[in-house]
């Protein structure tokens, strides 16, 4: 039940090759200027709604990338924060972006300044609105909680990678009556976000949100390629289940689809079928 090498079942190599090709070809297409389609996920409507409500109240908005270290997720979280900042800049709603990582802090400052520029309101950018609180988990959490309570924030956006400290953010947000939207790929924290936030963007949706906003070709192409992979997985599952039902669960085609050592029986079966 494990693969030491691709030779254990060449199907593994074929499948990986297919996924790699699907991703790379679509990235290439996107880079060539092809407009790839990504659906608008409901989470974005939730974000817009939360922005709307906070502008009515006129109180500040907080954005928290959690303990996310600088990497793919941090870049994508910042893309979303930039989008939110551009929207609220039109109504001059104040914002606070609170980080626990020095690199993310530096990049975030740049991104938020850009956002105000692009919204045509560079005058609104206040360097103090992006803050580095602490790199220690609970010190950061209590810093965020204190700020949220003092400023009675109207909306709280949490995007990135989160651990147990997310509970403290979500609870404080609830106490001050903020609209809360979370988005994370950390599945262990998702249940608590769903219970405590108004809307939660889950797993791959997080990448899709950022791809939808940024139109970044690499991300878009990759999302489309991954979709092809998912569709092929789903069709193998449906097709394989039917073969299992009608021809038995040890049919060579079924063995080929993922079973280690499943290649040999399939080849033998295939040559038999073709030979006949």
């Amino acid at each position, binding site marked *: 039940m494990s693969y030491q*090498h*691709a030779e254990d079942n060449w199907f593994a190599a074929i499948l990986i090759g297919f996924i*790699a090709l699907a991703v790379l070809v679509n990235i290439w297409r996107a880079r060539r200027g092809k407009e790839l389609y990504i659906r608008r996920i409901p989470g974005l409507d939730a974000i817009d709604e939360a922005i709307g409500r906070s502008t009515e109240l006129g109180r500040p908005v907080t954005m928290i990338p959690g303990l996310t270290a600088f990497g793919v997720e941090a870049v994508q979280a910042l893309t979303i924060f930039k989008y939110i900042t551009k929207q609220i800049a039109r109504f001059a709603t104040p914002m606070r972006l609170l980080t626990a990582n020095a690199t993310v802090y530096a990049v975030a400052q740049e991104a938020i300044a850009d956002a105000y520029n692009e919204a045509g309101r560079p005058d609104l950018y206040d360097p103090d609105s992006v803050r580095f609180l602490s790199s220690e988990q609970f010190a950061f959490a209590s810093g965020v909680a204190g700020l949220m309570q003092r400023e009675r924030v109207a909306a709280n956006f949490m995007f990135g990678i989160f651990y147990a400290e997310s509970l403290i953010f*979500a*609870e404080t947000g609830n106490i001050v009556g903020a609209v809360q939207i979370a988005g994370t790929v950390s599945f262990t924290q998702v249940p*608590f976000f769903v219970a405590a936030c108004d809307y939660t963007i889950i797993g791959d949706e997080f990448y899709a949100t950022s791809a939808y906003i940024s139109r970044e070709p690499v991300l878009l192409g990759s999302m489309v390629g991954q979709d092809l992979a998912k569709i092929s*997985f789903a069709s193998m599952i449906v097709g394989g289940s039917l073969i299992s039902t009608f021809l038995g669960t040890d049919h060579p085609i079924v063995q080929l689809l993922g079973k280690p050592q499943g290649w040999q029986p399939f080849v033998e079966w295939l040559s038999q079928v073709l030979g006949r």
Partner: protein
Amino acid sequence: MLFDTTQLVVALLWIAGAFALAIALIPLLGTLPPRGRFALISFVTFIAGLFFAAEFFLPVGEDNKNILTDPFQKMQGSLQVITALSLGLGTYGLVRMHLRNAIQRRPQWGYSLVLLVAFVVMAFFSVWNTMAEKGLFGLKRTPLLENAFTLLFDYTLIQLDATMFSLIAFYIFSAAYRAFRIRSIEASILMFTAMLVMIGIVPLGKLISDSIGLPAVQTAEMRTNPFMLENILYNLRLPQIASWIQETLNAPVQRAIEFGVGIGALAMAIRLWLSLERGIN
């Protein structure tokens, strides 16, 4: 013995030479234009990935090995050494920051001092302890080491660690009361499932089901005839419901998540391997 000493000297010379080469290359690397830098980084990234990928994909012989299988251990070991160096980098950053706090007498510099003292003392005993284990440099375990290490490790670090982890229980409880709201269909499904699972997986679930008189065992007859009243009642027991939720409803959800995460991770690996990822390199 003599042979061993010569071998040691040779090894040290090799290492000194490697360091010299690494330092000599720095000014040379400094002359690279930005484009060349990116190309170099991408090249190294690609080659490092290629080795591990090829070990997996190349055909194997009778002994289930290919030409890269034996060097794999050493390559993976080198990877581990570099990872350890990068962990050292984190420590270096931490110490640097607090040293600066302490020297410049920034606010709360006293705590930085506490941190530094704790770091130095623990590092001393930890390195001594590890070396004594390996018998390096003739170091031995002495009563001082034993006692100090027990105090610092077993009764301080471990206690603090366990307590830090356990704080979350309080936060969950307070959030349960004040933040976990049944505000939408999805939150209702989630909370309802969670409550069923929380009661069904502990012995209380069995106690409740027993006390309202649901059948305690599933007989062979009930198994073959699922629509029997007894079987339906048996399946309504809290432990059975919790089990069914976890094994039949939860397992496919987790598998769908696994597939999504797995495909995503593979796509990300390919992007990183070929240096296509934006904003990272």
